[in-house]
């Protein structure tokens, strides 16, 4: 069977199955369990109303627990029970964690991850904010916005591929080198070559992708800034810069923080870009790639220990992010 047919059938079964589930479960609830008639009509209606939301969230809860919650616990379990060697196993329950933290590669990965967290969210949010403001009043602003947003639709691996071409050492292929050559450089330069700076070249890819996200959210937030506070600032004598940084940005600070932390969470999980572009170099390693490498070499205990470390790092940001976005909704 051609792939497209299987794909279509899968979609049909998935969507149709969900529709059938919602329809049938509601019918069961209303006709069989708590029918809106008979002597208990009031009680029945009340119970049906109480149960109905659960019918709707059940598939999501089920899928999430199956694919997220169970693995978390299983990973935690593996990280304290699975050891690469008996030697390691003798050093106690947390031997994997001890090994992780004493591993020099882990330190490099942690440091790189730290750099990613520092640079990417800041750069994406800042550039996104500028793009949002600058495209706001342009007649072709919406076109510009679509262009900036476009990378969001590209998969990380696809984006890595595009940027591998951009960075390509051959001036005939890589646009950066082509530009350098135009301005008199002799021959191409290898951008990703094992230097410490390499991580930055990789970060550019994620910034390129995430700027669109930041721009869209912040653009909506900027539109929400009351026009009259801006007019009041104009009357007060503020110039466009001051209006932007002293009036608009402070008013959308909560949104900026949510965007920032959302990207931070994403950055802590990024894997594909480094795997696709820098897999041969140790110095660009980040936690998820190191984790995957241990997995591939069958060292599950070590890998899951790293994954738990990543989770512990993400968790506080996540909690803060959710709190903040809830507060903003209010």
């Amino acid at each position, binding site marked *: 069977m051609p792939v497209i047919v299987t794909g279509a059938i899968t979609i049909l079964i998935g969507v149709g199955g969900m529709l059938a589930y919602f329809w049938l479960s509601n019918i069961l609830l209303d006709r069989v369990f708590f029918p809106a008639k008979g002597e208990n009509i009031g009680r029945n209606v009340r119970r049906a109303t109480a149960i109905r939301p659960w019918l709707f969230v059940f598939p999501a809860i089920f899928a999430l627990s199956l694919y997220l919650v169970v693995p978390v616990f299983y990973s935690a379990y593996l990280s304290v029970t699975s050891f690469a060697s008996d030697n390691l196993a003798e050093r106690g329950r947390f031997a994997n964690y001890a090994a992780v933290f004493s591993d020099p590669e882990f330190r490099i990965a942690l440091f790189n991850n730290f750099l990613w967290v520092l640079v990417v969210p800041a750069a994406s949010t800042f550039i996104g904010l500028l793009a949002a403001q600058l495209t706001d009043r342009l007649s072709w602003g919406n076109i510009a916005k679509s262009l900036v947003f476009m990378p969001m639709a590209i998969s990380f691996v696809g984006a890595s591929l595009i940027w591998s071409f951009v960075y390509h050492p051959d001036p005939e292929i890589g646009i950066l080198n082509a530009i350098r050559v135009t301005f008199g450089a002799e021959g191409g330069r290898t951008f990703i070559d094992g230097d410490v700076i390499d991580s930055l070249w990789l970060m550019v890819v994620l910034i390129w992708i995430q700027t669109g996200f930041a721009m869209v959210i912040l653009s909506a937030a900027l539109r929400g800034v*009351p026009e*009259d*506070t801006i*007019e*009041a*600032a*104009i*009357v*007060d*004598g*503020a110039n466009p810069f*001051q209006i932007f940084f*002293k*009036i608009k940005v*402070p*008013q959308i*600070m909560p949104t900026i923080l949510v965007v920032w932390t959302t990207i931070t969470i994403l950055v802590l999980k990024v894997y594909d870009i480094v795997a696709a572009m820098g897999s041969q170099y140790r110095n660009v390693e980040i936690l998820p790639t190191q984790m995957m490498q241990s997995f591939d070499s069958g060292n599950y205990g070590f890998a899951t220990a790293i994954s738990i470390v990543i989770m512990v790092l993400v968790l506080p940001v996540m909690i803060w992010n959710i709190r903040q976005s809830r507060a903003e909704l209010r």
Partner: protein
Amino acid sequence: MADLKLTDVQKVYGGTVKVLSDINLDIKTGELIVFVGPSGCGKSTLLRMIAGLEKITGGTLEIDGQVVNDVPPSQRGIAMVFQSYALYPHMTVYENMAFSLRIAKADAATIDAKVRAAADKLQLTNFLDRLPKALSGGQRQRVAIGRSIVRDPKVYLFDEPLSNLDAALRVATRIEIAQLKEQMPDSTMVYVTHDQVEAMTLATRIVVLAGGGIAQVGTPLDLYERPNSTFVAQFIGSPAMNLLPGRITGTGDVTTLELDAGGGQITSTYPSRDSDMGAAVQVGIRPEDMTATEGDIFAFQGKVEITEALGEVTLLYFQKAAADQDAVIGKLAGIHQGLRGTTVRLTAKPEKVHVFRDGVSLLHRDAPVFLPGVQPH
């Protein structure tokens, strides 16, 4: 400190939508000018053009003899108070008031002195460290006023500053604004409002805007006693002036009138010309100027359909003489009971009877009168 002069000012949106045209206005230092007019007539637009927030598409605006059409708002020497307060939500009351001075790079001591003086004047001293969201509506509006005071502007612009306040607070804040004006006799103020009482009590002169132009300019009592058109006559005062169709039967320094429907004979102190003899006119009498009478000289006689007893006055709504006419309303002082369903005869003193021919008051026939061509209400 500042005269304002508008010459042939015009506003066109997007090249086609003409909102205002031929606005000519001379505002003297120390005046408090109130713009009134039906909703959408361009009051805010005109105010914003004076502020510099809206481009002037035709004519000139002078402040102190200087054309400021292209001068940015902050350099026009104006300050504006917005209907929605427009406080900066992330700044404290102090910072809100200090913002313009900080932008202007004033030194800290000057800023502090000015902010505290303004806060003192507006009883805001205890709230200086609060954020706007922790203030009541009236306090917020005072902060907005304080923000303009610290700039020490030549011209204050207010766009419906009290319309977000509840009735009691509105009265209190109105009085505060009147007192503020008294403390600053040299500053010029332009004030937009929907509220007749605000207009009548605060204004040195009222500008009635309608239909894209100025219907009349004058002191509050001028407009009340000598409206130049039926539009202004009906716009100023509440309930609106009754307009009764009639004919001129006697001319001279005093005009004699005969009313068409259900009416009798009445005289007005409006002078008329010989050529007016027999002309169809509209006779305007304010509800509050009407008195009940048994005599033969009366303006109107009709059946009372509804009465509203308010204690200090009683409102009488008469049966309409014709379907397309407004119901005549009478406002009698004191309490009158049992009038509903009866036929009542109303008259008015000759000096309270206004006469309009083709919509223009007989008193204002020599100067051109702008007829807005829209309904006052």
